[in-house]
């Protein structure tokens, strides 16, 4: 204990100058900007007493919103797996014409400010939009309902899947596919046993990252979602609604659940990657 403390004060075995200064600056910075907010977030729901917390657990609108957020984020991440895999494969192996442009476009959802994505997707899939109008003729309504939420979350989550699958695919020896073909494997067998199997840890990571992002996503969703309580209202929006009602405890309870879910998803990703890793940790 005492040794750990003295090591903390001296900065381990390094003799480089500046330890105390950089330690003080970092503790000040993270203390004010991260630890203090986290303490406030954890303590606030209990401030109005246990009764308020129990009351919060009877809030059916909160559970409806959480369900909308979790199910839409999971569906979007799931749909993104084949889409992301196809794009990653096309970028790495497909000799795709214009692959430089395609590569830059994959990062677009991360670079586009979320409010811009939001109003754009709402317009694109709206009743008069380029995609919304033809879909409406087929009887498919996307904007201002649950499918709209999934579409928006697919857009913001896609880069996570592509960018985690891509490096693993790049490191996968191409000879393996040829060897499997020479040994008489059918194309379907090659895809499932030789290409997809080693990608599983990366796919789980991509799914987890896209899910964690989707659960908390706000700006790109609220314009297309419709935002009807109990139906198409996402949990982050309900946080905002509760704040407007000056119900800080209610808002904080939802915020805590959102935070814990994202952290849990990311922790599970770490575990699952270790368990399913076939080729070592490539992702």
């Amino acid at each position: 204990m005492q040794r750990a403390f003295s090591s903390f004060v001296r900065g381990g075995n390094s003799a480089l100058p500046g330890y105390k200064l950089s330690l003080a600056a970092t503790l000040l910075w993270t203390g004010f900007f991260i630890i203090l907010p986290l303490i406030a977030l954890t303590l606030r729901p209990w401030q109005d007493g246990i009764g308020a917390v129990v009351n919060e657990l009877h809030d059916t609108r909160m559970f409806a919103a959480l369900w909308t957020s979790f199910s839409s984020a999971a569906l979007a991440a799931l749909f993104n797996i084949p889409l992301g895999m196809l794009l990653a494969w096309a970028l790495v192996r497909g000799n795709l014409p214009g692959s430089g442009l395609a590569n830059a476009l994959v990062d677009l959802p991360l670079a586009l400010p979320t409010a811009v994505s939001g109003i754009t997707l709402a317009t694109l899939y709206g009743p008069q939009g380029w995609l919304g109008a033809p879909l409406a003729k087929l009887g498919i309504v996307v904007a201002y309902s649950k499918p709209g939420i999934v579409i928006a979350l697919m857009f913001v989550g896609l880069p996570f899947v592509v960018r985690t699958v891509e490096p693993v695919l790049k490191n996968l020896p191409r000879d393996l596919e040829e060897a499997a073909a020479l040994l008489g494997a059918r194309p379907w067998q090659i895809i499932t046993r030789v290409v997809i199997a080693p990608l599983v840890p990366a796919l789980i990571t991509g799914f987890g990252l896209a899910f964690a992002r989707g659960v908390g996503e706000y700006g790109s969703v609220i314009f297309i979602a419709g935002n009807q309580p109990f139906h198409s209202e996402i949990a982050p929006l309900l946080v905002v609604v509760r704040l407007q009602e000056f119900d800080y405890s209610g808002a904080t309870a939802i915020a805590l659940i959102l935070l814990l879910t994202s952290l849990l998803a990311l922790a599970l990703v770490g575990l699952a990657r270790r368990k399913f890793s076939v080729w070592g940790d490539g992702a």
Partner: protein
Amino acid sequence: MKKYLLWAITWGLIGIVLLMPPAVVVVEALKNGLGPALETLKDPDGIAAIWLTLEVSLVSISVNTIFGVLAAWLLTKYRFPGRSALLVLVELPLSISPVVSGLVWLLLFGAQGWWGPSLEAAGIHIAFAVPGIMLATLFVTLPYVVRTLVPLMEQQGCDAEEAAMLAGANFWQILWHVTLPGARVALFSGILLTTARAMGEFGAVSVVSGHIPGLTETMPLHIESLYNGYQTVAAFTMATLLAAMAMSAVLLRSAPEWIARRRGAQA
């Protein structure tokens, strides 16, 4: 034949999923032509929003670059108990919902927050004012400089720094003349990511801003007001400008690579 089919499917998907959204932004902005679009940029509330966005970005870049460099130095040059916990902590804002990143500041400085009422009584306004917007943006952009610097500085090791120390250099001299020159590209990239995120942040800022046009509206918030007020051309013109600013920051990260390649080609 099969190859062309695959190319067609892939580009079709890229077109629908990734190419159409930015096209919509520009087309909607120019719906009535270039003149009316540019006219909307003369709105004083819009100009105020642009200035506020630049101000907030500048503050976020300065604070998070200075502290980010010091934190990266601490996390890569020393091994001390609690180091891995600090690494996790510094990346935390990336996995927190933007709305929650705004909410925490209301819990501390809002009207019903811990210190809000007493600060308010002393005449210091944080929530629903510019300082609150700065705090929320500083929080969401905190990780970028550290997380781009740490892997690179870790790889560099400490040999050059130790040599400089033995030659009599002090901390600032080592940092400025030995460590940072080698980490220039990563630092540049981290600063640009901070810039892009600071300019585009919507959820966190929306919670703490109070949405007062001309005073506490950043560009993303002003876009929301315009869009909800059915001023489509104005909303998408501002959106085009904001997207161009954020995306050029992201694309500029490849600039050092281009420069190096051109120099390599000339040599």
